[in-house]
């Protein structure tokens, strides 16, 4: 087996992305919002397409039409929830209504994350090879509900374990062709990282915040693996806290002084930063990666997660 260093980079530029966002705004306004799924497809298409790994770009082949169908389904489901809540309240069964509502929400949240992962990865290819998400819907629902309950019972102390369990489950089920991702971060380490971060940030009047962000980023990235049979690829982070100062500070200034207009440049800068500071090495022969993941086109989860703002998971 040969040892390799792999290169990932982001080639997009702010102006192109700005133009895409402007056209999205124009078309979304003209269609009174109906263009939203197509707008989203355009943005993802650009961001994925400008990310290059080993000289080959990623391709996002999800379409506005697929996501529009998901959008309608998600909207109908959401309408149903609110309608049942209102019916309960009008019939003076507030408690039952609220319980029903939160019960549904507790079910819908993991299902949307699951759906979003399935769709997003099934629609992503690299070098012609599809990604895939092989997680089990109900196993993830169980994991999620257990995590939420334990977090509530322990007044949030359990949440680092919950977050890491969730991340581990999600990432361990991502495939590209016949290679699989893995994540080995655990709750206890993450908990210590959070405690250390909170206290040092408070003690240094916020200065440590940037180094904390760097540690969290490294914890997410360096615990990932990609394996194919007995070949592996490791992920490393070469950014320092100082690099994060530059990223976050400049992004903030850009945002404030342009009243948010520079958001496309901020997105592009951040992606450049992330790709630039991740290095990968190992023994995987990517040329021999085989197509193995199935085709899949249901985008309901993708849009449900938009309704509930689950962007943080990905």
């Amino acid at each position, binding site marked *: 087996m040969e040892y390799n260093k792999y290169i990932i980079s982001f080639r997009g530029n702010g102006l192109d992305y700005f133009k895409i966002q*402007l056209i*999205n*705004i124009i*078309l979304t306004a003209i269609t009174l919002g109906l263009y939203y799924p*197509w707008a989203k497809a355009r943005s993802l298409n650009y961001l994925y397409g400008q990310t290059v790994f080993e000289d080959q770009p990623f*391709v996002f082949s999800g379409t506005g039409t697929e996501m529009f169908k998901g959008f309608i389904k998600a909207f109908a489901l959401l309408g149903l929830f609110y309608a049942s809540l209102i019916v309960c309240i009008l019939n003076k069964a507030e408690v039952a209504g609220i319980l029903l509502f939160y019960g549904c929400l507790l079910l819908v949240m993991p299902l949307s994350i699951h759906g979003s992962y399935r769709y997003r990865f099934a629609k992503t290819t690299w070098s012609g090879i599809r990604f895939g998400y092989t997680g089990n819907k109900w196993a993830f629902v169980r994991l999620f509900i257990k995590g939420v309950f334990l977090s509530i019972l322990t007044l949030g102390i359990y949440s680092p374990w919950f977050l890491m369990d969730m991340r581990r489950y999600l990432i361990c089920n991502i495939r590209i062709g016949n290679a699989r991702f893995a994540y080995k971060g655990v709750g206890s380490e993450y908990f210590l990282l959070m405690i250390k971060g909170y206290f040092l940030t408070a003690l240094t009047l916020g200065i440590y915040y940037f180094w904390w962000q760097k540690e969290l980023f490294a914890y997410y990235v360096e615990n990932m693996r990609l394996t194919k049979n007995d070949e592996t690829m490791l992920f490393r982070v070469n950014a320092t806290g100082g690099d994060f100062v530059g990223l976050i500070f400049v992004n903030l200034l850009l945002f404030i002084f342009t009243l948010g207009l520079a958001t496309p440049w901020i997105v592009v800068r951040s992606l450049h930063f992330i790709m630039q500071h991740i290095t990968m090495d190992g023994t995987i022969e990517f040329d021999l990666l085989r197509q193995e993941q199935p085709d899949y086109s249901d985008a309901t989860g993708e849009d449900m997660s938009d309704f509930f703002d689950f962007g943080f998971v990905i």
Partner: protein
Amino acid sequence: MKYIHKVIFFDGLQAGGQTVLMYFSETGIFIQQTEEWDAGRPVLFFPFSDCTLQMVSGNAHVLLNRKGTQYMTLSADSSWFPELQTRLNRLNRNVFAKLFQLNVLVLVVLAIALLAGAYLGFTRLIPIAGLRLITPEYEMKLGEQFQKTFISGEEIDPVKTKQLQSFATSLKLSKTYPIQITVVKNTELNAFALPGGHIVVYSGIIHAMKDADEMVALLGHESAHVNGRHSLRAVLRSAATGILISVVLNDVSGILAVVIDNASMLHSLSYSRSMEEAADENGMQTMVQNEINPVGMKKLMLHFKSAEAEMPGTYSFLSSHPDTDSRIKHADQFAATHKNSSFAAKPVLDSLWLQLKH
């Protein structure tokens, strides 16, 4: 053959690319997985209608199907690339592609014009539709709810509430809505109207007033807000703005938040300038209908303008409205037209006012 080119082809079975031979016609791309073209061997055909071009820093990636599993890469410097590009783009000329060719400044202007248009249209249409859909009866119910939520955090003065209620009942303030007064124990100089007839008056404002006609002016002004359904209009307008912003920012979850937020923000909502002017005008007409000299409105305003100078920030009745002076001027003009009318004494009203003051 000179029209046959070498490109790197990704077959969607295995990741590594292979060098293949390719030529294109009017309708699509032909690929043969050989080193030298052999007419007897199988040829793959990809119609242009299935192909998309993805340009990444000087390299062209021609996706050969809609799934992104098969594609070919070539350098955009090749002499024959422009021709291929034209053929690819000819079939993919949608609105987005056309707009993308425009200059960024043109797009900025277009977006701003559209947003401004949408904003104006939307913030006017939604309130009109909402006002038609919501009946005064429902508005009263809604106001009841808002009033309950609001007073739950405040201390009510039951005696003054009753006295001011009798004062208000002795006046003709509204034809559609029953005017219901709540006096809240609070030194702030404030009063506001809720949808459906509820008027909340802070005890500070009663304390600061001298004459009954000022109170008639205040009640006239607030009932004008009630009669004109101003708070409902303001809620609808602000909801419309919020929904529009959410749509533009692609933030669907925001739409729900806007609707929920607005309900609770009602009493801190500011009326537009035209609503305030209308409330002043109608308030003074109400005064005249009740045979009270409209000069009371000007007295009220002058009185509180000086109070505001002494205690800035405590007088909400005027502070949300920047051009107090022009309102005073308008009140003065209105009063001047009634200079020669005689207004009879109002013993009942005055005695109710005296009760309230003590």
